[in-house]
């Protein structure tokens, strides 16, 4: 079943068009990779899908509902969650609190109960604290449970974002270059991690330049170039597409 449909999507900044008439769809439960040269519009596409940028025109449908132009927090409530290429960590908080923020929607915090510290609030907070710790363990951050986010190394922050995004309990998870800053060993772990998340039924949309990861996990690949669809298909199909090789993979990328 298709989960996300992008229809005739167009996005420009001033006179500068970044996405041109883009149409594609993503199947529920799949791992759908989006690749393409730097500046092709991948992150912009994510920004539009997650409600951070309104599209110039075109539509985005999620589970059949038109979500175009809805605010980001509303989309999160529908089950769309993401990580960022330029880390967006709450640096003023601890690592654990970063993840706990991810549970915001599940907590449904209300002002009065919070002000008066109703027992239910305390109880639930305790519960989410444990879940957050489990989640940190799941992404391999057990060592950082007590750490301040501002004191963590880059690679750990990437996983912290992933944990936070998972805490939102998404139906669809958009990952923007999760492997950047990880070494091959760590990327290998990430590979497993992504598969495990997908196994839980979460649709994954992956933007990544690390081809080893892309080839390893993707069910389907969309190639963007200058805001247009350049190619689409399985890994094998895309990999040997001469346009893709010329625009993006180069000789090195093809073989990795």
């Amino acid at each position: 079943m298709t989960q996300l449909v992008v229809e005739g999507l167009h996005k420009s900044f001033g006179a500068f068009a970044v996405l041109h008439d883009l149409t594609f769809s993503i199947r529920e439960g799949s791992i759908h990779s989006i690749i393409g040269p730097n500046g092709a519009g991948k992150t912009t596409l994510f920004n539009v899908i997650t409600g951070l940028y309104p599209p110039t025109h075109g539509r985005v449908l999620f589970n059949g509902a038109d979500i175009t132009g809805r605010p980001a927090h509303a989309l999160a409530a529908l089950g769309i969650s993401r990580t960022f290429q330029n880390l967006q960590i709450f640096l003023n908080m601890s690592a654990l609190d970063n993840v706990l923020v991810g549970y915001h929607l599940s907590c449904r915090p209300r002002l009065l109960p919070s002000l008066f510290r109703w027992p239910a609030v305390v109880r639930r907070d305790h519960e989410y604290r444990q879940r957050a710790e489990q989640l940190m363990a799941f992404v391999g951050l057990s060592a950082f449970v007590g750490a301040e986010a501002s004191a963590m190394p880059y690679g750990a922050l990437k996983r912290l974002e992933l944990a936070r995004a998972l805490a939102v309990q998404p139906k669809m998870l958009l990952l923007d270059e999760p492997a950047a800053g990880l070494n091959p060993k760590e990327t290998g772990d990430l590979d497993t991690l992504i598969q495990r998340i997908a196994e839980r039924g979460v649709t994954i949309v992956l933007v990544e330049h690390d081809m080893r990861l892309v080839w390893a996990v993707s069910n389907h690949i969309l190639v963007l170039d200058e805001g247009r669809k350049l190619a689409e298909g399985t890994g094998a199909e895309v990999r040997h597409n001469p346009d893709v090789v010329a625009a993006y993979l180069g000789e090195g990328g093809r073989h990795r």
Partner: protein
Amino acid sequence: MWSPPTSAREAAIAEPLLNVAELSSGYGPVRALWDVSVRIEEGELVTLVGGNGAGKTTLLRTLSGLLPASAGTIRFAGEDITRLPAHLRARRGIVQVPEGRQVLAPMTVEDNLRLGGYARPQGEIGAALAEMYALFNDLRLRRRDIAGHLSGGQQQMLAIARGLMARPRVLLLDEPSMGLSPILVDEVFATVERLRASGTTIFLVEQNAYRALSIADRGYVLEAGRIILEGPAASLMVNDRVKEAYLGL
């Protein structure tokens, strides 16, 4: 690109260009580096391999002077620079391409590049700019645009180009290939090799340890803030520990 004056060259014979001895450093009371010793000869390409949180970035920041050394010495071209302010180190030719790009977001691409050459005679800037634009076509196309609006990879190109604009004597690269498309990764590695060929000394931190080691002369392995291994790149590549932990083999 750059050839040192003879006196400096003589000094360099006695001592490596960059000589880091027993260096410790960290963040306030938290120590992140312990007795790190690194020697980089003039014209060498040395790579630093290490896992997430090993302290690679911390080492580079300490070398550049953004973090104070709590113990040990840093000598550069025969001079003790352990206490030298960061901007003077940059003017001596120690140039860093920082992790996470760190472009000057509200300024234009071209302003970013020109500032890269801040410490250089202004007459040379024009030619250097042209060189960078030839290397990174995207930057040429976007040169009047605001750097902060570029895509992640474009910003990474800008960070590298900005570093090169300074015509470094030793270039500290902190994960330069991060976020670049495969084609551009090839391009960046090719550039690094070219720079080395033209005499620039390079200290490369790179997650893609395999490729880094394949072009490097020598390498160091950093774990938990300590150097645990060092040697010729070729020998590190076949080291079991390196293979398992960093090459993902």
